[in-house]
């Protein structure tokens, strides 16, 4: 059989992945460099009976995405840093009310309007802590057009499985780069929208095991219940009962942090017998892969840990290498964000160095290679 091979942008691959995962609802607001995602879905969704709506602002885009999900659709929105700032209010609502949906952030340089058409990885901490209050998040970062396709599918699967919003962080350069991609005929393991099947009268929408998400019925399916952003009990109604509040907040954390093996994904490249580990994600992990390859050819014992899940952080993988290597280098397209997570886990067991670029131009393999050589010599 002939393979379905195409040349497309990361933003297009994101749409293809979303459609393969079953998206039928999109609400958003135009913003560079994510707009192609909205444009293509405006074209594609009605063709499959799905719905697209351009809302009046980013806040409304997130709200309507949640509304679409509550009505039973697999639902998504797409934005960039400034838009994600505005979406944080209702992103937090989706975390608290446990509404499955996917939020794509095609990252550009900031702060503020910043560099609308230039690449960055400056939103990784916004992804983690952008909305107020204690919370766990899931954020994934693909490194190629092909990977964007599969990562978007994974984001939908995790959103449905854990009943929560999931972020996909694309660097602008991934969103706009054109590459070869193979779209498979069929995708296995698509997580369906869960629906309750018990007694409608005694339905407890937010009753869930301490490490699981709830099973929320679509509005209109006959299970009538209440959804709120207030702290709530199993019934979904507000409560200030300290025990119930604690159970909810622990569960919102633990449904993510007690399922790390399922959620956290990395690629370990050339990491047997190493003195130095490069930790990178997104587009920069490709510059890093080239640098590591060249360093290997020069006889340096260097490996690459590519983070594909940014949040929850891959503590267990950093921990695994912390005692084995002399140093770690964390190249990022920002002034240093994930490097602090690496430092936290390493906790002094190895030296940790940041390598950064944040002027809108993509970090080259040479920049990383030079740093690898410098650190390697001095380590």
């Amino acid at each position, binding site marked *: 059989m002939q393979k379905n091979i195409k040349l497309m942008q990361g933003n297009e691959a994101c749409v293809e992945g979303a459609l393969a995962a079953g998206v039928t609802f999109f609400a958003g607001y135009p913003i560079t460099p994510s707009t192609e995602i909205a444009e293509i879905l405006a074209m594609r969704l*009605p063709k499959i009976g799905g719905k697209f709506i351009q809302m009046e602002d980013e806040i409304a885009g997130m709200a*309507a995405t949640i509304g679409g999900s*509550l009505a039973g659709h697999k639902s998504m929105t797409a934005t960039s840093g400034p838009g994600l700032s505005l979406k944080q209010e209702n992103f937090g609502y989706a975390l608290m009310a446990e509404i499955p949906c996917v939020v794509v952030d095609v990252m550009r340089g900031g702060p503020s309007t910043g560099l609308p058409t230039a690449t960055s990885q400056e939103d990784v901490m916004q992804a983690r802590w952008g909305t107020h209050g204690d919370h766990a998040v899931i954020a994934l970062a693909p490194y190629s057009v092909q990977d964007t396709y599969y990562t978007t599918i994974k984001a939908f699967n995790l959103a449905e499985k854990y009943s929560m919003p999931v972020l996909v962080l694309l660097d602008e350069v991934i969103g706009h780069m054109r590459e070869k991609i193979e779209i498979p005929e069929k995708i296995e393991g698509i997580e369906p929208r869960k629906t309750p099947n018990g007694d409608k009268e005694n339905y407890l929408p937010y009753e869930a095991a301490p490490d699981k998400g709830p099973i929320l019925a679509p509005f209109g399916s006959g299970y*009538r219940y209440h959804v709120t952003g207030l702290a709530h009990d199993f019934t979904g109604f507000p409560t200030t009962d300290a025990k119930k509040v604690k159970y909810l907040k622990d569960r919102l954390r633990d449904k993510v942090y007690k399922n790390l093996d399922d959620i956290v994904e990395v690629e370990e490249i050339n990491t047997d017998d190493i003195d130095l580990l490069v930790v990178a994600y997104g587009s920069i992990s490709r510059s890093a892969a080239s640098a590591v390859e060249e360093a290997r050819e020069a006889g340096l014992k260097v490996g690459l840990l590519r983070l594909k899940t940014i949040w929850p952080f891959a503590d267990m993988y950093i921990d695994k290498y912390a005692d084995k290597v002399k140093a770690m280098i964390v190249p990022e397209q920002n002034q240093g964000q994930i490097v602090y997570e690496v430092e936290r886990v390493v906790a002094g067991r190895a030296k940790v160095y940041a390598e950064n670029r944040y002027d809108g131009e993509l970090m080259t393999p040479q920049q990383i290679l030079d740093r690898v050589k410098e650190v390697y010599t001095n380590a």
Partner: protein
Amino acid sequence: MLNDLKHHLREDKMSHILCPGCGHGTIMNALVHSIDELDLDKDKTVIVSGIGCSSRIPGYLNFNTLHTTHGRALAFATGIKLANPELKVIVITGDGDASAIGGNHLIHACRRNIDITTIIFNNNIYGMTSGQFSPMTPVGSYATTAPYGNIDRGFDLCNLAIGAGATYVARGTAYHVSMLTKLITEAVSSKGFSVVEAVSHCPTYYGRRNQLKDAVTMLEWQKDHAMPAKAFEKLPEEKTKGKFPIGVLHDKPAPEYCEEYQKIIDAQKEDN
């Protein structure tokens, strides 16, 4: 009669949070009577609210209910309605929720003409946060954040809704409760985006500071200052000064958003 309506309520979620004398309960009562009269299918009815005193009301109503973020109820409701147009969607919001923080969503929901009914509980004050002025607080009134008198000019939410494109717009009061019920019934029945401004009263945080000593005085104020819309339109300005029109202010159908979107689906569907 009252017992016949109880199935619309979640009695186990009461007592409610509203203060003694609050007008919101009366407006909720009018809404429940309308829902009963229209015989809406509970499973297919969604009631959405924002944040504030009135926005806590959906919790007491036995439907699919969604208590969202401040000002955003209409944006959530738009997602629900477009995703499943079979659902009857009613939004409950307050004057601060609808006209200040949610003003943009109100304008664009009107413009889009999506089939949602919005009931704005207008008590001229932020009650939940204990009495700050809202865009609906009259000039010269006192509020905790207007201790020397309010200098912020208010505006007419119904005129805003008409100007923005809502197809059914009406104003009622907590005093004229049977008229209010009729207006809500018409609004929910009309296809397109409908707005009912329900003039309410907050004796606790507005009346107390503004020489309206109790709920009865505030209801009498509504009675004395409201004027049927038809009379209001005909009378010269000097006769309507200080009064506000109640009744149907605008009723003019226009293409409804979900139906227009369905036409696109029908034309574009791949199996055609």
